[in-house]
């Protein structure tokens, strides 16, 4: 086992897709019943590769990853979104995930993010604790959000004052149902 000090934290580099993405997919797919397609990875990495951070061990093996994006939310606040976070099982409990998430948040703050949101499975207490320690709050529960039938919490972190009052355009897909025809 490696001591935490021997880990290197690096920013994702799109020119190394061939070597990094397969390792990333392997790491993330472990926790999923159904893997994400390559398009999901490319969707994030090609547009926001600089918001993706990796933890590598001394043999240059990937042991942790965080994937995120940052864009205006419906013409409103600049919203960061943490899409995926994974740490290899035998490396858990060493603060690697927290470090990775901090790097992503710091990068988003540098790029003027107003808020950061994410979802986490209700049963994933470790993830919830991690984000809540960083100041995230649960804003809502999402019923049966995942394939396995588990619900999720939406977690939110405001980085600036006044974000809650920024108006957004369009209809929130998680908003109220359209009127029921009677």
């Amino acid at each position, binding site marked *: 086992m490696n001591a935490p000090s021997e880990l290197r934290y690096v920013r994702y580099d799109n020119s190394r897709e061939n070597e990094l993405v397969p390792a990333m997919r392997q790491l993330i797919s472990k*926790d999923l019943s*159904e893997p994400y397609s390559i398009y999901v990875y490319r*969707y994030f990495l090609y547009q926001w590769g600089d918001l993706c951070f990796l933890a590598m061990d001394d043999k240059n093996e990937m042991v942790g990853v965080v994937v995120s994006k940052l864009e205006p939310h419906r013409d409103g606040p600049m919203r960061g979104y943490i899409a995926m976070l994974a740490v290899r099982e035998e490396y858990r409990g060493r603060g690697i995930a927290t470090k990775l998430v901090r790097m992503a948040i710091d990068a988003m703050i540098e790029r003027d993010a107003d808020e950061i949101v994410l979802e*986490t499975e209700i049963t994933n207490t470790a993830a919830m604790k991690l984000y809540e320690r960083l*100041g995230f709050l649960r804003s809502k529960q999402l019923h*049966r959000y995942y394939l396995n039938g588990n619900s999720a919490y939406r977690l939110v*972190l405001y980085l600036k004052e006044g974000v809650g009052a920024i108006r957004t355009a369009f209809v929130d897909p998680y908003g109220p149902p359209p009127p029921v025809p*009677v």
Partner: protein
Amino acid sequence: MLPNNEVRVPRPRVVQSAVPRDITAEFTDAASKLHGGQLVKDEMFTLFEAVGALEIMDSKMDSGYIAPGENLAQALEDDYDVRQPLTPEEVVGLMDQLLCHEVAWHKGHPLSQTLFTSIYLDRLLWPVPRTMEGARFDRVPSDSPLVGLVLRAYCLALVKSCDLVHARVATEYYYEEEDFVSQLYNRNLLSAFDISQFHRLLDQAVAWVGDQTDIDETLKQAIQSRLLFRHEFLSALHQDLEVLETRSTENFASCIAQLEPLLESVSLGKPVPEAFSLKIQRKLASTVPPRPMVNISHDDALAHMKRLCQDAIDMQQMLDYCGPSNFKTAVWTLLSRKPQPSIYIRCLLQALIVSNMTILGAVPVKDFLYDDLAELVLPASILLEANTDDVEMPSDPRFQIAQKMDGFLKRFAQPFVDTVRCACMNRCRIRRTICHTIVDWDNLQMEAEELDLELRTLSAEPPLQFQGGEPTWSFPLSSWAYNQKLVHFRLILQMGFELSIYSPEELPGMYWYLSHICSTHLGHIDRIRTFTVAARKRDLMSAGTRTGGSLQKASAFHKSFHALERLTTHIVAVDAFAIALHALYVVLARHNVLPSASSSQAYSSDRLRYEIRMKPFIPITLPELVPYDEYKREAALEGDSDVIILERASKAITEARKAWEATLANGAFIDDPSAPNKPAPVAIEEDWKRDVKDTMRACIGTSLAIEAVRKALAASSSENKSLNLEVVVPEVGSKTRWHDWWVVPQVSEKKSQA
């Protein structure tokens, strides 16, 4: 983590006629100029589409993928023989496994992972049978009547029950994939066939089983009880909305009666796992990755079925409209049962609550709305009595009042009914929906205010003057809308506790905010009462000149005062309890014994976190948002000593206990003197009582916690040490969480470290 369950239903594409040409060379050329990983997408390509995409030839995503060397026939077909004879034990085992799958489907799993893993059902339903005779396991029937008659009858009736459930749910408002998966994969659930045909087959099967001499008696009964359950369940579901006329609970009651022997005989069954296969998924839909079979236990399945039937029976107790309060209480109470009633029940209720602008198939929405207005703000008011049919002179103020009220009705009826119907959603959606609809109600209140201004001129309402102040008018319609909104505010907060939204360190603030909303609400009810009292006085003074209808008026006013009184008692109870918990949590937070989810290294500040919490309320004009600094001061009870705060907690909890006692004594429902012989909704009332009693239990828990803190405080001040307390915030569903809406901390003396 991203969800990967975007609905993978192919979208209709616009097909344009075009002359095909080979673009291979152009494509290869263009592709060669891209870097690996470079994303080529148009503006419209969203994350949802990326998540919904499949990778062909990846066995975990491509359900049609056949591995190299895999035999095509073997990969797609199972060699299970549906004609093979089965033992009675196996038939029981199969029936029970199918029931488990059926319930898993009811609970929101797709058919492809549940019932459509059954080879028997697959054979019955594909190719789509045109006749009942055509719906069989094989073209050549099995020689065994246990298979060809008994199991087939059971399977067919099961599919038909699914058809009836599917038809009801799909017509109503539900959330695809959250509540239910409606996908049928181009199969038809025998919707064209009348239930009498299924009943006939079931009867034949029951009779055949009864005639057999070589089957053990207990097994015969086991099979028969399963067939009879199907028979009754089919009848019960077939009743559907007709329950409004039939008022029959008989079929659902028989279902429950059959579930008893069914449960007892589960152990007789012998599982036939090879009769279920995931290979069928490969044929169902190519847009879905292979997904595992969902297995739920027999106990879970039977318990779910029993609850469904019981909910359906109890639902009938609310089909008689007995006034707006009673109706709303009954709907909310029934739908707040834990576990929440199944999606079938929730959809059936939606349809019963309102269809064709009629409540419970009998009361026009207008009457419901007007009853609610009369009860809260406008007893015996000309505003509700004016009618364009009676008064035809357009210059008559009554005509104009009636016209204005018609406009009000058109605008408010739907949102009002939706506030009731909203209870049919899943719990998460209820809260999310209300977070959005309070904004609508804020706007509605402003619109109502405009109407109030116009109406008060038409009705010549005399103003009231308080202590030489400005004249004020009643503003009945906007007062009513404001009341509605305040109820929603409270619900958002209370459901926040229920859904475990708040972290422990937020509890002092959230209970402070709850009490703040309650006191605002109580002030509003006082205002309403003041104007109703004045209206009653005016009415009595003028009664000398007019005699007609005075009894009726007295009764209308009495009803309204009574309703206001009940509402007041209830909100006082909530308010007092919130004040007590607020005070208790403030002391725990002050002494750093309240657990905290956030750490000192957090990115956010209390101010930013307050803003997130207040997000739904920021756009609301009334009640105004409490500015952070004021909130901080009030919520932390700055300036008050621990002793004073604990005193406040004790007083408040004593008041809360009294007020909850009074609420319980008031009962769930208002007696309807016009219909003294109507049977009371006993079952729903029991739920309501249990809820209040659980709240009272939580009050007692709070009293104990307050005492424990007081003792620890006294000990620590005499010894000059920190509070020797351990505080646990009980999770929803745990034994010590007496009520979902009341988070009572478990306070105990910290065990000495020695």
